[in-house]
């Protein structure tokens, strides 16, 4: 790698990456896949950045670049940030995985944190993710209570383990409170495409689905549900990644489609990791926090939800948060009827991280 030799030369001359003096602010960089105003995924990461600024004040300086495509341009954007003197860089989308590792090789003194990935090829690369399936257990419970048609819908982004965990967790918990429930899964093949997401939501509503869960980041499904409700429908949704509280009322002022939400709160993690860089205690790790760590938060459950359902949801939040309940606790069978978890057995993280099967009761195949 010539860049490395060049860089080494430059560093020897003291041109690049000046050694971190004690009172220099730590420079923290963020690479975002969407605009910070997307109201979902990127918005939440940027809230995390602001929390870092608030926590450390002038001991840190943050920079970010928004709407960085997950392709050839990502590597340059990350390199640029490293050249610009960043001490730690958070790359906040799965598609930055190879680019993050490639840049990390060239900048051994810069720390890299890649969200939702699994490659840590160099000692200065850590990965982090959140246990969104814990939140899905709560929204699945609510979905089971709220559906009257016994048909709930799930807008999936890509058939990757993280999304399949969410589908399985939602379905298992809906089924627990409503044994007759069926789930319709639609794949949008995008993380953020309001038009496609709205189409998926409308198609589900036409099929008689009355509760929609989404694993895509826009508010379009919420708007589609609001539109259906304005035409006499009764459709409920959940905010995804961000609270999406604006959809908690219908256009006519009645309680609206959004009855709760799963909020990604990256602030605790970002504060912890930036703090580790400041203290000089940063180490490579693979972090997977959830409700106990405060990384997965359930947004306000509205009054559209009956008291009984709300109580059940709150009980589940408490049980997951104090560690007494794991959303994947047996007995659970796989879709083909074979036993996955025996009675009382809890899923191990390795299986979850590679989850490529539906649980029993979900119709349809995972696209391959």
């Amino acid at each position: 790698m010539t860049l490395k030799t060049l860089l080494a030369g430059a560093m020897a001359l003291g041109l690049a990456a000046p050694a971190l003096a004690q009172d220099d602010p730590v420079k923290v960089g963020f690479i975002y896949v969407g605009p910070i105003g997307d109201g979902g995924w990127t918005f939440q990461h940027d809230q995390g950045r602001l929390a870092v600024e608030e926590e450390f004040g002038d001991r840190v300086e943050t920079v970010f670049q928004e709407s960085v495509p997950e392709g050839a341009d990502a590597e340059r954007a990350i390199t640029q940030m490293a050249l610009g003197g960043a001490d730690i860089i958070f790359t906040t989308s799965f598609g930055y995985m190879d680019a993050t590792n490639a840049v990390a090789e060239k900048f051994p003194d810069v720390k890299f944190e890649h969200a939702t990935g699994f490659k840590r090829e160099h000692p200065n690369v850590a990965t982090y993710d959140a246990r969104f399936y814990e939140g899905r257990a709560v929204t699945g419970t609510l979905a089971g209570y709220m559906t009257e048609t016994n048909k709930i819908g799930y807008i999936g982004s890509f058939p990757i383990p993280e999304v399949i965990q969410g589908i399985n967790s939602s379905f298992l918990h809906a089924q627990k409170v409503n044994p007759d429930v069926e789930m319709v899964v639609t794949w949008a093949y995008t993380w953020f495409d309001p038009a496609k997401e709205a189409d998926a939501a409308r198609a589900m509503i036409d099929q008689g689905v009355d509760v929609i869960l989404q694993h895509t980041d826009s508010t379009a499904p919420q708007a589609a549900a609001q539109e259906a409700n304005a035409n006499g429908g009764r459709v409920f949704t959940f905010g995804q990644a961000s609270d999406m509280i604006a959809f908690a009322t219908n256009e006519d002022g009645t309680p609206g489609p959004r009855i709760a939400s799963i909020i990604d709160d990256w602030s605790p993690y970002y504060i912890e990791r930036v703090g580790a860089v400041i203290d000089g205690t940063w180490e490579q790790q693979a972090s997977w926090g959830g409700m106990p760590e405060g990384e997965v938060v359930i947004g306000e459950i509205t009054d559209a939800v009956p008291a009984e359902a709300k109580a059940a949801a709150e009980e589940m939040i408490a049980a997951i948060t104090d560690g007494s309940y794991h959303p994947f606790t047996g007995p659970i069978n796989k879709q083909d009827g074979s036993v996955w978890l025996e009675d009382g057995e809890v899923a191990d993280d390795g299986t979850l991280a590679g989850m490529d099967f539906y649980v029993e009761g979900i119709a349809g195949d995972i696209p391959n």
Partner: protein
Amino acid sequence: MIRLERRPTPSRAWGAASPLLAVALTMVAGVLMFAALGKDPVEALRTIFWDPVFGEFAWYFRGQLLVKAGPLILIAVGLAMGFRAGVWNIGAEGQYIVGAICGAAAGLAFYPSDSWLIFPFMVICGALGGIAWGMIPALLKVKFGTNEILVSLMLVYVAENLLASAAVGWLRNPDAVGFPGSRNLSRWDASSNLELIAGTGLHWGGVAAIIAVIFAYVLLTRHLMGFQIRLAGAAPRAARFGGVNTARLVVFCLGFSGMLAGLAGLFEVTGPAGQVSIDFASGYGFTAIIVAFLGRLNPLGIVAAGLLMALTYVGGEAASANLGLPGAAISAFQGMLLFFLLAVDVLTNFRVRIWQGATA
């Protein structure tokens, strides 16, 4: 009152001056926009246009300019050939995608072999993929008189869906536990398209672009086909009477531009992008249209235009990261370039008359 009067022949002087004037006007409008956004406009312009070439980290960014300009120039040279003949291939983005998919699929079929023949084979398949995608609008036009603008543009969306199905389905990396995207071609020695001269950013795509520019230049100025292309564009009726085979011309232009776009896709997927992923298409096929016109449809002009466009990308990203300029401001800046170019081009074809009184 200002009136426009059509010139009998386009002005050569304005033809050459209008890109320069457009760049100057874009700078002025950009300064106003950056100032309105509350950023120091001089610093913004310096970050975009000066730092990547002469700044502290120019040793890195100069190479990146070539990485970015290579595919733009390669595609634009092909497009310009067609545009000159009045064959409007708007779907280079689709040909770029299909070239990348075909080349990648051809290579991955032999994974994990390390034969040196794999990369050349992928290059050929990438070119054939691009040609095949260009042939669809070409043959439909020749046989059924369909409009190649619409057909080639619509085929971009077909190609994007092919790309999605390849990335999440049949080309997906079997070792990536369900995550979308193919194997990383730039990390497989047999298929990797790395820098030829370290630190320059020059990979095989850049070499191909240089060859394409020379080839197109010679063809247009020294070869009968080039003459026919220019004639067909300038005077279609005369060309027909003069014995130019229009069908052959359409097939050649769409095939040639499709091939170059396919090659650009192949060199990108084996190099800077590395893998067939959902987001592989980054708009080079569309941006190359701007580059072709900014370069006056002239192969040498396109080289300059491609480098300038690459500079706005690389510098724009730097401004976005270091100065906190919103990403949309950079896109707007690039859009203004085309807008002013088209506006100034009016002067090439029209004379401006200051006109008084109510005669006429």
